[in-house]
Each structure stands twice: as C-alpha cells, then as structure tokens.
C-alpha cells in the first residue's frame, strides 16, 4: 500500500539531517576549539590560522567528499512518475 519510493525518500532526507549535524560539528568544533586563544599565538597552516584552515577549508573539502560518498552508497534511482510504480 505504502509507496516504496517514499521509504527511500525518507531515508535520504534523514541522511541530509545527519550530514548537516556532522557539518555543523566540524565547523563549530574547529572554529571555537582552536580559535578561542590569543590571535598572536595562533598556529598557522598554509598561511591561515589553524582554526580557519580546519573549519573552513579542510572541513568544507571533507564535507564535499562525504556528500559524494553518501550519494554513491546510499542514494537510489527512483522514477518520479506514478505509472511506473510496479518496479
């Protein structure tokens, strides 16, 4: 009775929520974890303060890779029109 495609859609929406939580944790953790000290004593990585490098540069690249993996592994192809429901 329940459309099987909606189960897939619900799961993918949940994955979206999980990804955002991970994204926020990386962003917040590195920024305020490493960046709360005295700016004159920051460790620098590739010329940027370490908090900025991890939170905004490495964190963003990591998220993009994670999203790519999530789509490859978990996201399924489904038809959008109702006629082809019997698959």
């Amino acid at each position, binding site marked *: 009775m329940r459309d099987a495609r909606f189960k*897939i859609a619900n799961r*993918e929406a949940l994955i*979206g929520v999980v990804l955002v939580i991970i994204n926020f944790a990386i962003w917040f953790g590195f920024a305020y974890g490493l960046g709360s000290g005295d700016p*004159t004593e920051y460790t620098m990585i590739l*010329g940027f303060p370490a908090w900025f490098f991890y939170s905004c540069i490495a964190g963003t690249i990591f998220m*993009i890779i994670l999203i790519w993996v999530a789509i490859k592994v978990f*996201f399924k192809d489904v038809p959008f029109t109702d006629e082809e429901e019997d698959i």
Partner: protein
Amino acid sequence: MIHWQVIFPLIIFLIIIFAIGFWANKQVRNSESFLQEYFLGGREMGGFLLAMTMMATYGSASSFIGGPGVSYNLGLGWVLLAMAQLPAGYFVLMILGKKFAIISRRYQAITLIDFLKKRYNSNIVVIISAFSIIVFLFASMTAQWVGGARLIESLTGLNYTVALLIFAVTVLVYVIIGGFRAVALTDALQGTIMIIGTVVLLIGTIIAGGGINHIMDALLNENPQMLSPFGSDGSLTPLYVSTFWILIGLGVIGLPQIAVRAMSYKDSKSLHRAILIGTIGIGTIMFGMHLIGVLARPVTPGIEIADKVMPTLTLEVLPPVLAGIVLAAPMAAIMSTVNALLMLVSSTVVKDVYLNFINPKATDSQIKARSFWVTTIIGLAVVLLSLNPPELLIMLNLFAFGGLESAFLWAVVFGLYWKKANKYGAISSMIVGLVLYIAIYQFSPNMWGMHSVTIPILASLVTFVVISLVTHYKSTLN
C-alpha cells in the same frame, strides 16, 4: 572613467543572454503544455542546470558586493559565518528531494503554492502564501534591481536612470519571452561566470598581496582580532554566528524561489549530480568571495564604503579584460536572482491567484496571453519603483528572506513528511512565523544574541505541531 576593455566582456555577456532568451522562446511556442513549460521549463532540467540555477538564484548581490565588504571590516570571522551557507547546496535538495519531485508530479503542481493548496486543501493557505510571496519578493526584486543599476552606474559612469534601463531591458526581454527555460539556461551561464570570477579574483588578490603569509602578517599587525573567529570588534559570538545556520543554511528550504526549483528537474540522476555540483559551487563562491574581502584589506587599504570593496579591488589587482569578466560575476548574481523572483511572482499571480480565484476556466490561449502580460507588467512596475524606491519597499525587503522562511519552512517540510500535518497547523504556524518575525525584527532585533529569524522559526515549529495534534484528535473524534 570608462575602461572599454572592462565594458567589452560585459557587453558580450549581455548579447549571449539575449540569444538564450530567443532560443528558449521557440521552445515555449512549440510546447504542448504552456504552463508547465513557461513556469517550470517542462520539468526537464539535468543535474548541471539544476545545480547552477539553485546556486545562482541563491547567490545574490550580497554574496558578491555586500558580503566581501563586511569581511573587509570584520575579518576571518565573517568568512566563518558565510560558510554556514554550505548546507544550502545539499541539505535543501536532500530534504525536498525525491519526495517533493514525486508528489509535485502527482499533484501536477506548477508552483509551491499549488503543492500547499493540494496538500492542505485550504484557500486560506493559498491566500496567505500568495500574499507573502507577492509582497516580499516584489520588494526584494526591487532591491536587487537597484543594486544592479548601481553596479552598472559605478562601472560605466552612466547615470542611474540609464543604467537601470539597460539592466531592466536585458532581464525583462529574456524572462518574458523565454520563461523558466531561459531563466535556467542563463542561470547556468551566470553561475559559471560567478564561479570563474570568484576563483580568478581570489588568485589575483593573493598574488597582489604577496602571498597568504604576507597578507596574514599585515592583518595581524593591523588588528590581531581580524584573524579570530569573533570578528575585529568581537561582535561575532558563537551563538549569534551559529543561528545563521538557520537563516542562510537550513531555512533556505522555505524560500519559494528555491523550493520551486526542486520540482523542475528530470530524474534521480539529475538530483544526485546537482547536490554534488551545487555544494562545490556554493562552497567555492561563499568561501572565495568572503575570503577575498578579508585579503583585500592590506591590498587596497582605506576603503570607506563597504560596497565598493569588491569593484575597487577588482579594478586594482586584475588586468582590464579579466576585470571585466570578474565584474560580470556580481552582475550575473543579481540578474540570476532577479529573473527567478520575477518568474515566481508572475507564476503566483497567474497560477495561484488568477486561475484559482478569478477565472478557473481560462483557455490555453488566455493563460498564455495573461502570463506574458503579467510578467511584463510586474517587470515594468519594478523598474518604475526602482527609479525612486519608496521607504515601505526598502523595509519589506529587509523582512523578505527571514519572513518567507518563517512562513513556509514548516508548511513545506511537514507537508511532505508528516501525515498528521493539517491546514490548521499550517495556517497558524504561517501566521505566527510571519508576525513574530516582523515584530522581532522591528522591535528587538537579534533578541537574546541570536539572529532575528531563530525565535520565529522555533515558535512556528511548536505552533504547527501543537495545533495539528490538537485538531487531528478532534477530527478523529467526529
């Protein structure tokens, strides 16, 4: 001072955009289902187009002009804040995702309001939605229009009225004749220019500043707080910055001009590709443009007006032709936002107001004529108002982003994912969200150190759930 080498790439850009408009017009004339073609491009967008149109619609004048100006003054903390926009690339498409695509096809929905109307079966929902879309987006369209004209004015030295007319004629012609397909195709071009422009300017600025190390040292010498996540004046508290995730990351689902794009793509593959491309695109632009603002400080010191940082820097560090390409980026950003808003307001008037309430039995040719006329009249009205924007419109524009999110976010999300969501919940949460947002913005902005949008979004969430549950219980009793 006019640099012809700078203007030249801009003119080529405008010509290509015109050509796209005429090509798309052919599709509109040959299409069997006018409404679906004109307002949704026939639901045929592939992954790259979807990613670009989402990104270009979302990235506006503030990403290219306003944003870099603020980071020029506040430092790396503002880049951190800007990165809260990354979820706008994947979260929106993952949440709306396949469910929205399937259901909007089942309902044969052309607009976001179509979906809400069929989901909640309520004319009041339609009226509140249509009213808020028309009022808020009309206002923000005017603001973007003014921004576009100011930009042309400052680049070419033409006076404001002439600049406004050039901008208006370009946008109006291709949107009116080409509809959504022209909007999406030009968005792809504009989005590409936005990304290329960002990368070119970032590299140019780093070279002009003598490398990252050198620039960071200069910033450290001027004010060490420029390098901290708290902003040069310490105003960016973790709580305040975190609540921006709601405004510019998660709440974006509730923006009708974004949501409507999630019903216009072709298949699952397009969605998957768009998520990845869109996230990379938004990440590049938001990170690049805001970082550029910070790096600009030692390179072109002493700029007083924040909005001039990006144009001044571009002309300073890049050779003229490259500068022309980079300066086409903010123009592209403004155009691609304006065209989406124009399309949306027009579809709201035609589909949600005219076909719903005024003439439900309109024939195809009537709808066609009305759509062209409505789009034209709205466009011309915006131009007229942009000549001398009234105070009220400027105020409404400030409410637009957060106001629409407060109104629509939960109605859309619960409408898709919660069976018990009903019209009473939707109506009350829309009203609570809207009223509370305007009240807080007006009387106590950034209440308790959070961005003004936070409390209205939470309040409308609670309202929605409570009212839906209470009325659900009642209706099962009967």
